[in-house]
């Protein structure tokens, strides 16, 4: 059962205030993932402690680096059920976990950070993991 909207509001805002687009419905997800060109990071947010202590602050730090995806969006697991379910259908071979992060390039999943690689990590470690993926996938070949 979803938590109170009031409780999760700051958890949403921690990402949206960093410019992350919130996808609230399946239609939002289809629209966002339907735009296949370029690179896109999808963050599966959650109410758990590792989202608060590592995932969300890690994403914020990673997005301040040089290389970053063209687009960043989030769905909230356990809250926006339809949107999360639709998002997970785009990487259906991967067991669902939250928080987690999926990086797409031209519509293809190229990198995935499951929950267990976030648990117990410092935000800087999560950011470093993402930054490495951004460097690999989000930098135009001509400026590598």
């Amino acid at each position, binding site marked *: 059962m979803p938590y109170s909207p009031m409780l999760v509001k700051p958890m949403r805002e921690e990402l949206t205030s960093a410019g992350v687009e919130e996808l609230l419905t399946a239609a939002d997800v289809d629209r966002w993932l339907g735009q296949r060109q370029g690179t896109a990071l999808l963050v599966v947010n959650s109410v*758990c*402690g*590792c989202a608060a202590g590592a995932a969300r602050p890690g994403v914020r730090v990673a997005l301040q680096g040089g290389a970053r995806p063209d687009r960043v969006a989030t769905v909230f697991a356990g809250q926006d059920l339809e949107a999360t379910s639709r998002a997970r259908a785009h990487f259906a*071979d*991967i*067991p*669902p*976990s939250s928080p987690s992060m999926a990086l797409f390039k031209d519509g293809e999943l190229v990198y*995935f950070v*499951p*929950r*267990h*690689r*976030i*648990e*117990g*990590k410092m935000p800087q470690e999560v950011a470093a993991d993402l930054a490495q993926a951004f460097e690999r996938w989000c930098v135009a070949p001509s400026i590598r």
Partner: protein
Amino acid sequence: MRGAFDSLSVGTFHQDKGELHGVTVVVDTDGPEVFVGRCHEVTPEGVVLLDADAHAVEAGAASKEEWVRRAARYGVWARHRHLVVPRQRVASIRRLGDVAE
């Protein structure tokens, strides 16, 4: 009780549900089975896992190491919402996040 369990009980876990509470762990046994799941708590009866999966080495099946390595890459399917690995079968517990992919 096995050695790995002993060491966890003296230093690794706290008085409450333990420092692995909420952490995805690999619970290995001396037998053919290995388990991965979110550690809920460690009790005198065993390790309580949530959203867990299990693998048993049989002819033609992946080795424990191969299965755990795959799990380390993307996680496991929650085939068991709640599972207790009996204490006497536990050989080791480690964080899945510490396993090299």
